[in-house]
């Protein structure tokens, strides 16, 4: 490269100047008779030409090259640098242009990274706010042992659950909004707010769900919806009932027989049509001591392992059958979570996962409730601090 620059600019100029002087000298020598000038004078002339050449080299090559080098050094040592503006089209000009292009791209990437960091920070805050919506402590219900596990696929999840105690009724539900991220989190928050509000006004899970859907449909876009399964325990009548809104099966373990029932929850997802009155219904779930209810989202059953196999309803039912009769709700849910984790191995979690286990204790037994929202992979033991 350097030889090419010098050839173009410097050596050509030098050669031209030298040739011109030589021609003039020889011409004068010829015209005036040999020798015209002494060797001393010739040495001075040659020396002068050489110094001129060096000056041209310094101005035309060294100075601009150092200008480029200074800015490159500034960039590499993280100091303030300037764009380089040359009019030349030789290699130095190309190098300067390349420097400007690279620094321009770096500036754009830095700007994007800053924006991304800001959005990530805001998402973290939103995620934290959303976690505060999912109850940190479920209300303990006399006669029931409750355990919950929930893990979002992203900072903002689309799985929804809540416990609401109003007079002698306790409502609890699990829901799943289309997709995840910010839009799903917003819909989840809306539903949570509506259900909490309507539970103060209406006395049946059916009416709460119908009214929530009516309001929700007006406010979300046509492609969004939320499936939900809501349970209601009435402590006066000692009756458990449920309303299904296009959600997964209701799983019930029967302690007497060891059988695991999977009941179609029915209905239609919230937000799909304006009036779901004729499509959803509230149904009773008779329970005896030792029976276990399991609610879940499709993130559990549709999770895949490295071979592409789905965990599926059958595996979930098998796990419930295996563990439900052994111990308390916390043990049941941890055991199911361990089996789940063992199955999916290192496969990336693509959807939010939620499990809710409710075990019927004897009448009058003190209620217990544990909620686990740790973000470690299910089945992993949290790092001891």
């Amino acid at each position, binding site marked *: 490269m350097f030889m090419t620059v010098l050839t173009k600019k410097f050596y050509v100029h030098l050669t031209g100047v030298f040739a011109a002087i030589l021609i003039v000298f020889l011409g004068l020598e010829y015209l005036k008779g040999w020798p015209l000038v002494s060797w001393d004078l010739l040495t001075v002339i040659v020396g002068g030409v050489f110094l001129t050449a060096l000056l041209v080299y310094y101005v035309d090559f060294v100075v601009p090259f150092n200008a480029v080098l200074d800015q490159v050094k500034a960039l590499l040592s993280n100091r303030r640098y300037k764009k380089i503006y040359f009019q030349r089209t030789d290699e130095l000009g190309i190098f300067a242009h390349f420097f400007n292009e690279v620094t321009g791209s770096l500036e754009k990437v830095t700007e994007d990274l800053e924006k991304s960091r800001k959005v990530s920070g805001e998402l973290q805050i939103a995620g934290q706010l959303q976690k505060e919506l999912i109850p940190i402590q479920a209300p303990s219900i006399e006669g029931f042992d409750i355990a919950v596990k929930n893990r979002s696929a992203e900072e903002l999840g689309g799985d929804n659950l809540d416990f609401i105690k109003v007079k002698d009724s306790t409502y609890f539900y699990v829901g799943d909004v289309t997709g995840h991220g910010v839009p799903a989190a917003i819909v989840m928050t809306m539903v949570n707010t509506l259900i909490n509000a309507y539970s103060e006004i209406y006395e049946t899970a059916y009416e709460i769900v119908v009214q929530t859907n009516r309001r929700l449909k007006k406010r979300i876009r*046509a*492609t*969004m*919806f939320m499936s939900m399964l809501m349970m209601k325990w009435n402590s006066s009548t000692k009756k458990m009932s449920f309303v299904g*809104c*296009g959600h997964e099966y209701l799983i019930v373990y029967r302690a007497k027989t060891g059988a695991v029932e999977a009941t179609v929850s*029915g209905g*239609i997802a919230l937000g*799909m049509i304006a009036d779901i009155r004729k*499509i959803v219904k509230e149904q009773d779930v008779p329970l005896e001591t030792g029976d276990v209810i399991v609610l879940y989202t499709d993130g559990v059953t549709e999770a895949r392992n490295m071979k592409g196999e789905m965990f599926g309803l059958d595996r979930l039912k098998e796990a419930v059958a295996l563990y439900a009769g052994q111990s308390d709700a916390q043990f049941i849910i941890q055991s199911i979570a361990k089996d789940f984790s063992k199955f999916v191995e290192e496969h990336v979690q693509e959807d939010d996962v939620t499990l809710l286990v409710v075990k019927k204790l004897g009448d009058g037994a003190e209620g217990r409730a544990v909620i686990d929202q740790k973000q470690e992979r299910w089945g992993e033991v949290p790092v001891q601090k």
Partner: protein
Amino acid sequence: MAGTVLDLVVTKNTNANYWLVDFTGDLDSYTIQLKRKELQELVNSLDKQQLVFNFQNLNYINSECIGMLFQYIEQLKTAGKELILVGAKKHVQDVLQTIGIYSQVKNYRSFADYLSV
């Protein structure tokens, strides 16, 4: 997921009261981006009474695409027309059944069953 495919074959039978759309592949967040415009144009331009979606070769549908189906159901209903679903595989059928879409749209086990009605 990027890399999944979805092919649509549209049959506009001028003698019949429907247009038929055969789906082959996966309906997910990636493929719907590629086919959304085409499907919406079909819904908008339908000049028959029914738009039939044949899911016989559909392997997968996600919740976002189910929401899109609902959107088409409503749009066609408003225009006095209807969406028909035929031939869904069992696991696709289960998902659609669970969500409750069959309370809003007619479903047939196969295209032949639909024609025989």
